[in-house]
């Protein structure tokens, strides 16, 4: 058994990233989930506005992406992260995400739309490495 994971980050329009990694860390609706090689098959829904981190995905560290509305499936050392909205950290426009977050302003609990928008903006900032961790 190989000691690497094959990871795919996929959005409906294209495949964002695919490659090998040592560990995948992702926030699901049940809490943080870390996947290492040999993990049992699992299919889990991602938390709204989550950040996916693939450790050892590149020579010098990790691959980060903001994902929204998706799920992760793990089977046979193969990890697929599917999200309706997904952006790699390098592709995120930080100032735009910051403005989006500022525009939402104070979030009231009953406004689902605003909550979702704030979560999206926050996850993008966190993935880009400038916001507070999600």
């Amino acid at each position: 058994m190989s000691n690497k994971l094959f990871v795919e980050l996929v959005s409906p329009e294209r495949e964002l990233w695919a490659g090998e990694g040592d560990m995948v860390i992702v926030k699901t609706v049940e809490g943080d989930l870390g996947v290492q090689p040999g993990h049992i098959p699992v299919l889990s829904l991602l938390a709204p506005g989550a950040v996916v981190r693939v450790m050892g995905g590149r020579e010098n560290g990790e691959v980060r992406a903001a994902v929204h509305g998706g799920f992760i499936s793990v089977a046979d050392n193969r990890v697929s992260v599917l999200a309706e909205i997904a952006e790699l950290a390098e592709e995120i426009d930080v100032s735009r995400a910051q403005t989006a977050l500022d525009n939402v302003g104070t979030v009231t609990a009953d406004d689902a739309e605003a909550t979702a928008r704030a979560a999206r903006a926050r996850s993008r900032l966190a993935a880009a490495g400038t916001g507070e961790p999600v």
Partner: protein
Amino acid sequence: MGAQLRVYRRRIRSTKSMAKITRAMELIATTRISGAQRAAESAGPYAREITRAVSAVAGRYSQHPLLTEAENPTRAAVLVITSDKGLAGGYTTNAIKEAESLSQLLKDQGKDVLTYMVGRKGVGFYRFRDRPMEREWEGITERPSYMDAKEIGAALMEKFTADTADGGVDEIHVVSTEFVSMITQRAATHRVLPLEIEEVDAEELKQQQGGAVPLYDFEPSPEEALDQLLPQYVSNRIYFALLEAAASQWASRRAAMKAATDNAEELVHTLTRQANQARQAEITNEISEIVGGADALASASAGSE
């Protein structure tokens, strides 16, 4: 210049300029096909994974209301994908014909049909004939985005989850044009929901998906996973249908424009031949007039001597 010849020359000029236009449209369509095909290809991994995931959950948990067929279905939604612009040969006509035969079939089974129309041409066709449409979308068929598909998917899912008594539907069908090859496109019908559960043997499964679906642990639960996965699955199927329809549309337009250019060129040939004939007839006529005149003069002077 004779009147006949002038008419021919005018027709040749206008046919030639028409051929230029159709040739340009053919070239544009050719470049758009590859763009549309690339979009369909890059949507492939997501479509494959979500289908795998849905079949994994559905295999374990088949009592979900979105999977079971209604005992006596009374209403069905039909999504028809047509084009926004014409000049694409039989593209829209074929899709509408397919939709009509499906609607007839559903009506024969005693179901009401709600039509959801994508594309200006289809909307125009139905509106002109005063046929009811539930919802319509225009201006998205040439370059469909996932957000468009999601909007359509949300509208359909809302109907599907609603109670039948409140106007909800029991089935969702999609009529779209499949891209078989550059030359062949085929209008086809697919039922999106409820899912059709297929019994396949192990060999076939191995070929299609690389072995049996692993026994997943579902978090939080199979039911909740399915609640979120199914709408995404439906949106994805619609997105894929839109992408394939876009590629088919461009391919069909290319073929139509190629035929138009060929026909125009052939017409120019025929007209040129006819124009030459008319010119030659005119010249012959003039010569015989001159010869006739000279003859008359000669015989007149011969008589006076």
